[in-house]
């Protein structure tokens, strides 16, 4: 018997998803509403792709499983701490953002139910940062830098996707918990300090890892 605990659930990893119950109800609802159109769009695209090629259903299943496992890996950061990659940049480059939105949302649902990483009422908020904003921003960065060569563009895509995800998370938290004195801006500075700034080395790490993976995939 093997246990997946050996891969997952090591303590000492920066918590990443907004936990169940952390956001006020109104915010949870609002972010779900914000993520919904993107998810619906993704599902329509998914449906169309599977109708055209039924065998893609199995490929998408494998892709989703890969995304889940990727986000469970631990990457060492330059600062010595550890984090999970978001995997959204690589996913967006490989499968395009709308499909990645769907796979990312399913991954988040499974993380909530199988690992208690992230919640059900906060699924919308987490999906918006990790399955919508991250993939689209990363994909845009990838397209903009594509003429610099594949690997630099892959780095840019993964770096921007990772960083965007955490910046959006900071915005979500700052909107929910404005600073007593300086309101949203002050709160953003605080959450940004905790999540986004420590995240820059980790975003670099994710960018580097993604480049390594893509380079190996190209040669094999």
């Amino acid at each position: 018997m093997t246990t997946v605990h050996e891969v997952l659930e090591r303590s000492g990893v920066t918590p990443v998803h907004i936990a169940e119950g952390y956001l006020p109800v109104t915010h949870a609802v609002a972010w779900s509403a914000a993520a919904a159109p993107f998810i619906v769009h993704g599902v329509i695209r998914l449906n169309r792709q599977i109708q055209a090629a039924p065998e893609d259903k199995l490929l998408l299943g494998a892709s989703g499983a890969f995304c889940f496992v990727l986000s469970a890996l631990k990457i060492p950061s330059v600062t010595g701490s550890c984090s999970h990659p978001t995997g959204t940049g690589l996913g967006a480059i490989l499968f395009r953002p709308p499909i990645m939105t769907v796979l990312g949302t399913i991954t988040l649902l499974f993380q909530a139910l199988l690992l208690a990483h992230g919640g059900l009422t906060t699924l919308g908020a987490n999906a918006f940062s990790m399955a919508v904003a991250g993939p689209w921003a990363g994909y845009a960065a990838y397209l903009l830098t594509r003429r610099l060569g594949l690997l630099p563009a892959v780095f840019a895509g993964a770096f921007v996707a990772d960083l965007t995800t955490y910046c959006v998370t900071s915005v979500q938290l700052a909107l929910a918990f404005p600073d007593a004195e300086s309101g949203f801006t002050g709160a953003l500075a605080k959450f940004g300090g905790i999540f986004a700034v420590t995240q820059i080395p980790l975003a670099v790490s994710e960018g580097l890892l993604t480049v390594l993976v893509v380079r190996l995939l190209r040669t094999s």
Partner: protein
Amino acid sequence: MLAIDAAAYRSPWRRHHPAAKALLAGGLLGCALVLPPWPGAPVTAAITLAVALGWARVPPRTLLRAARTPLGFALTGSLTFLVTVGPDGLGWADGGVRRAADVVARCTAALLCQLLFAGTTPLADTLPRLTRLGLPVTLVEVAALIYRMLFVVLDTTRRIRDAQAGRLGTRSLRAAWRSLGGLGSAVFIRSFDRARRLEAGLAGRGYTGSLSVAVAEIPLKTRFLATAPLPAALAILTTLTLQSLP
């Protein structure tokens, strides 16, 4: 194997309909989110914990281990409430402790409700029923495939990582990076190979595009369904009573 997942299949509540369990846990989750955090959150948390450990027999160790990461998030995130950013820089926030305590309490209660549902309701029972909520069939089928395949892929990942460690792949930071890149690409290739092989395997079983299966009926037991809203009602009543005390 994932601890919460494994616990859900062994749960004494396995025979109850997922919808009834969703009603029970969802009611409590509503209490955790909507009731005033003091005393609402501790009351909801206590009742949920009692239901989870006493009635649904969720293993305490599994519950505790699973709660660690999200609680870590809640605690670090709430540290920011203790300080305030004003015109003259950082300062201690008035009522910051209270605000942080509110959020951590609400979060803890909500987390327990989530774990109560997850620890008693296997995804294999839930996923195929999601189409009845109006979710598209393809989406549900893809989700079910991901659920099946992620265990296969996780197992592969574990074995590749072991093999890398055995050949000194974690000896230095350089080696760790080399290993991680190899792991990512190997797992990617293996996942897609899995998909291709499963496609061939299913073709032999007559797959032409639909993955329809027969979902075993789980009867909605009236007694359990009737008791399902009670914990939430108890949470509301207790909270209101405690609040009305002078």
